[in-house]
C-alpha cells in the first residue's frame, strides 16, 4: 500500500509539473518556430540554397529588432534534397512533429504540388517565393512569386515588339515537369491570339539534370533560319549552366537569337562565363542592379550577413528575385502575426491579406485577396559582369491572374481565395456535394 501511495503521489506531482510547465511555455516568451523547406543538395541546390540563407538573414534581422510581438523566431531547417516525395515528408515532419507556425519553402512547382496536399490536410501555412505557372490558388499558400501574367506574358510581348527584336518564331525550351509544360500551354494560346501559327512554335523538353545541349542548340540554329526567332527558356536547376555554355561555345549571339529565361537569375549566372551571353534576357520582378534606397540597404545587409557567417562564395554572392520574394514574404507574415495577435494559421491567414511592404524592387507590394502579390514586371539583359541591366519595366505593380485567361475553362474559377472557402469546408465536414 505504501508503495502504491508513493507511486500515485509521484505520478500526480509529475503531471502537475508537466501541465504547469506547458501552460507557462505557451506564454509570450517562447520562440516561434518556422520551417525552412529548401533543397540544399541535388540539382536544385544551386538555386535554393540562397533562399535558405536569405531566410535566415531576415529572421536574424527581425530577431535583432525585437522579434515578432516580442517573441523570437526559431528557424527549423530541413533538406529535401531535390527529391519531390521527400519534400512532402519533410513538410509533414515540420508541421506535425516540429509544430512550426509557418513554412517558407519550395522552388520547383513539382515540389509545391507534392507538399500542397500535406498543407491542406494539416492546415499549415506555406509562403512560396518563386515565379510559377499559376493554375493554383490554395487557402494554405501565399504566393510571393510571379504568376504568368506578371512574367511570362509581358516577356513574350517584349520579344515580339520592335524594341525587343520583333521575333516571329518561338522556340519553347524547358525542363520536363509541370511548370514548363503549363507555362508553354499558356504561351502557345497567347501566341495564337497574336496570330502566330503552330508551325512557328517549337516545344522541346529535357529531363532534370540534363547536361548535353549540343543537339538542341543545333536545332535552335536550324529553326532560326526560317525567320527571326526567340528562345523562351523554362530550364530549371543546374542544367542551365551547360545550356548557356553550349550557347556561348557555339557562337549563338543574343542579337541573332535572343534567349529569355524565366528561372535564371544572378545566382544561376554566378557559375558561368557571361561574356558570350551578353544580351540574353531574363524576366523577373526584381534585379540586383536596381538603384533605389531600399535595394541598397537590402544588398548591404546581405553582404554583411554573408561575411559575418562566412558563407561560401564570399563577396561574389548575389541577390535575386526569389530572395527578394522570400524577404518580403517573411516580413508580411510577421506583420500579419502582429496584426492578428496570434500565430494561429486561421487568424494569420486573413491578416496577411491587404498587407503592404516597401520592397527592394522599389515598389510597395500588396497582398491581394487571391493570395498573390501585386508585382512590377522587369526585363533585364545579361551584362558581362553577370548582372542584369533593366531594358524594360512596368510603371506600376500588376495584379496577378493565377487562373490564366488563355486556358479554356478558367472563366469559372474563383477570383479570390475567400470564394473557394465554402466547398473546402463542406468537403472536410464530410458533407461534400454528391457527384464530385
Amino acid at each position, binding site marked *: 500500500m505504501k508503495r502504491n501511495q508513493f507511486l500515485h503521489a509521484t505520478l500526480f506531482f509529475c503531471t502537475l509539473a508537466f501541465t504547469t510547465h506547458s501552460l507557462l511555455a505557451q506564454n509570450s516568451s517562447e520562440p516561434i518556430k518556422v520551417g525552412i523547406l529548401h533543397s*540544399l*543538395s*541535388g*540539382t536544385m*541546390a*544551386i538555386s535554393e*540554397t540562397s533562399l535558405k540563407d536569405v531566410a535566415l538573414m531576415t529572421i536574424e534581422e527581425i530577431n535583432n529588432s525585437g522579434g515578432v510581438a516580442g517573441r523570437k523566431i526559431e528557424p527549423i531547417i530541413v*533538406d529535401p534534397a531535390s527529391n519531390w516525395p521527400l519534400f512532402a515528408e519533410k513538410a509533414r515532419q515540420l508541421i506535425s512533429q516540429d509544430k512550426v507556425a509557418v513554412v517558407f519553402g519550395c522552388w520547383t512547382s513539382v515540389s509545391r504540388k507534392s507538399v500542397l496536399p500535406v498543407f491542406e490536410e494539416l492546415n499549415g501555412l506555406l509562403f512560396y517565393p518563386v515565379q510559377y505557372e499559376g493554375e493554383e490558388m490554395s487557402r494554405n499558400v501565399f504566393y510571393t512569386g510571379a504568376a504568368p501574367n506578371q512574367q511570362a506574358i509581358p516577356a513574350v510581348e517584349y520579344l515580339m515588339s*520592335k*524594341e*525587343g*527584336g520583333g521575333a516571329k518564331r518561338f522556340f519553347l525550351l524547358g525542363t*520536363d515537369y509541370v511548370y514548363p509544360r503549363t507555362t508553354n500551354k499558356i504561351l502557345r494560346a497567347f501566341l495564337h491570339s497574336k496570330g502566330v501559327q503552330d508551325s512557328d512554335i517549337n516545344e*522541346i*523538353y*529535357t*529531363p532534370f*539534370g*540534363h*547536361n*548535353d545541349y*549540343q*543537339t*538542341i542548340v*543545333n*536545332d535552335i*540554329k*536550324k529553326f532560326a*533560319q*526560317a*525567320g527571326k526567332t526567340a528562345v523562351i527558356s523554362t530550364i530549371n536547376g*543546374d542544367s542551365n*549552366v*551547360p545550356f548557356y*555554355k*553550349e550557347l*556561348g*561555345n*557555339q*557562337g549563338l549571339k*543574343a*542579337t*541573332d537569337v*535572343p534567349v529569355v529565361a524565366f528561372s535564371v537569375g544572378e545566382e544561376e549566372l*554566378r*557559375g558561368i*562565363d557571361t561574356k*558570350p551571353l551578353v*544580351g540574353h*534576357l531574363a524576366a523577373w520582378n526584381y534585379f540586383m542592379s536596381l538603384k533605389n534606397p531600399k535595394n541598397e540597404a537590402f544588398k548591404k545587409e546581405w553582404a554583411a550577413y554573408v561575411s559575418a557567417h562566412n558563407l*561560401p562564395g564570399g563577396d561574389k554572392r548575389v541577390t535575386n528575385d526569389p530572395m527578394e520574394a522570400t524577404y518580403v514574404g517573411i516580413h508580411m507574415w510577421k506583420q500579419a502575426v502582429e496584426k492578428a495577435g496570434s500565430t494561429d494559421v486561421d487568424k494569420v491567414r486573413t491578416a496577411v491579406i491587404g498587407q503592404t511592404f516597401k520592397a527592394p524592387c522599389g515598389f510597395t507590394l500588396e497582398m491581394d485577396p487571391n493570395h498573390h502579390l501585386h508585382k512590377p514586371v522587369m526585363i533585364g*539583359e545579361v551584362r558581362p559582369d553577370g548582372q542584369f*541591366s533593366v*531594358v*524594360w519595366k512596368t510603371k506600376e505593380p500588376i495584379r496577378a491572374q493565377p487562373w490564366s485567361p488563355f486556358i479554356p475553362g478558367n472563366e469559372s474559377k474563383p477570383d479570390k481565395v475567400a470564394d473557394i472557402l465554402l466547398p473546402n469546408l463542406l468537403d472536410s465536414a464530410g458533407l461534400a456535394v454528391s457527384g464530385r
Partner: protein
Amino acid sequence: MDRWFLRLLAASFWLAAGGSALAIAPEQIKPLAEDDFDARAQALEQIVTAGDEVAKRILEALRDERLYANKDGQILIQDGESYHDALTGALVESKTDDLQSIELNNVLREKVATGLAGLQLTAPDRSVRAQAIQTLLSSGDSILKPLIEKARSSESDPALRAELDQLWASTALRDPDPQRRKEAIGVIEQRHDPQLRLVLAPLLGKQSDGTFTESDAGVRKRIEQALASLEREEGEIQFVGTLFAGVSLGSILLLAALGLAITYGLIGVINMAHGEFLMIGAYATYCVQNLFITYWPGAFDWYLLAAVPVSFLAAAIVGLILERSVIRLLYGRPLETLLATFGVSLILIEAVRTKFGAQNVQVSNPRWMSGGITVLPELILPFNRIVIIGFALVVVLITWLVIQRTRLGLYIRAVTQNRRMAACVGIRTWQIDCYAFAFGAGIAGLGGCALSQVSNVGPDLGQSYIIDSFMAVVLGGVGQLIGTIVGALGLGILSKLIEPFWGAVLAKIAILVLIVLFIQKRPQGLFALKGRSVEV
C-alpha cells in the same frame, strides 16, 4: 534589320562620300540617355547619318559601354580615368557617382555594330575592313549599295573582294535588272551558308495584293533552285553536327567505361562505386584549379596539364584502398561485392559532400578551351569538346600500350583469360588484381577530369554516369579494348541520332530498350573473348 534605317544609312554615306559631313547637334544625341526606345533609335540613326569622326567615336564608345550622361544631359565619353564631351572632345570634370551609364538593348546594339561596320568598310587597315564585312554579312539583309559598290571597286585584296561580292549580292537582290538578280542569287548560293535562306525565302512570298514579291518568274525559279541546294547543304551540315555531337558524347562515355571494362573484365565484380571514381577525378581537378588560382594565377590557363596526373593518382589511390579493404575480402562472392561497393559509393558521396559542400563547385574552362572553330558558316565545333575527344583518344592509346606492350598488361590479359591457369604458371593474381583495379580507377579519374570541363561538378556526378558506363561495357563485351570503344562510341552516336526526332528523354528510353533487345540475342556483347570460361 530595319529597312528604313538602312536606307537612311545608305543615303548618308552617299552624302559622306560626296564630301559634305553633317555635324551632330547636342539635342540630337540627348535622347540617348532617356528611356524612350524610338527616340533612342532615331538618335542613333542621326549619329550614323553624320558619318564623321565624331560619330565614329560615339559609336565606338557605345559599343564599349564608355558613354555616359551627366545630370545636365551632357553626353560624355570615358577615356580611362577622364571624361570628355562627346561632341567637342573637351575635358569635363566629373565624379563617377554623378554619371549615368548609357546602356543598350539587343536591337540598339545591333544598330551600333552595323553602323560602325559601315563606317569601317573603307578603313586603311585590312583586318578592320575584313571584320566590318563579316559584321555586315552576318547581320543578314543589307542594302548599303552605294557604299558597298564603292568599297568593292577600290578593294585590292582578292579574298576581301570575294566577300564584298557576297555583300553586293545581298544588296543586288532588288536590282531592277532580272539578270543581275539571277547573278546575285548565284553568288549567294556560292557562300554555302544556310543562314542566307532568311534572305532568299521572303522573296518567294506574296504581298498583300496577291502578287509575288519577286515579279520575274525566271528569277523565282532560280531562287527555288538556290533554296533547294542550300537546304541540301543544311541537311549535310546537320548530319556532320550530329555526328560530332555523338562522337563527343561517346568519348566521354568511353573514358567512363574504359576503367570499368578493365576491372569488370579482370575480376568479374560489378563495382557500383565506379561513378565515384569519376567524381573524385573531377574534384581533384577542382582542387588543382584552386591551387593554381591561389599560388600561380598567371599560369591558370595550364592548370589542366597538372590536373590530369593528379586526378589519375587520386582516383587510383582510392581504387587501391577499395580493392584492398573491401573487394579482396569478398573474392568469389559477386552479390556481396555489389552491395558492398554500393555502400562504398554512398560513403564516398557523403564524404565529398561533407568536405566540399552539397552544391556544385565551379570548374572554369581555361581560355583556350572556350569558344569554337567555325568549320562552316553554320557549323561551329566547340573547343572543349574537340580537346576531350583528343584526350579520350590519347587515353585509349596509352591504355592499349599498357595492356599490349607491358609486362603488367601481359599479366592482366592472362588473368582475365584464365585465372587459375595464370596462377599455376606463377603469376601473383592478387597483385595483378590490385594494380589493374587501381589502373581502371585511375582511368575513371581521367574521365572525371574531362567531365569537369563540360558538365556540372557536384557530389552526384558519378550517379548519372554509372548506368551509361555499364551499358557501354555490356554492349561492347568484356576482355577487349575494342569492345568498349565501339560500345561507347556507338551508344553516343546512336543517342544523338535519335535525339532530334524524339527528344532527349525518349532517346534515352529507346537506347535502353535497344540494349535489352540486343542482350537477348547476344548476351556476351559485341566483342567477347573467345573461349572465356565461366568462373564461380
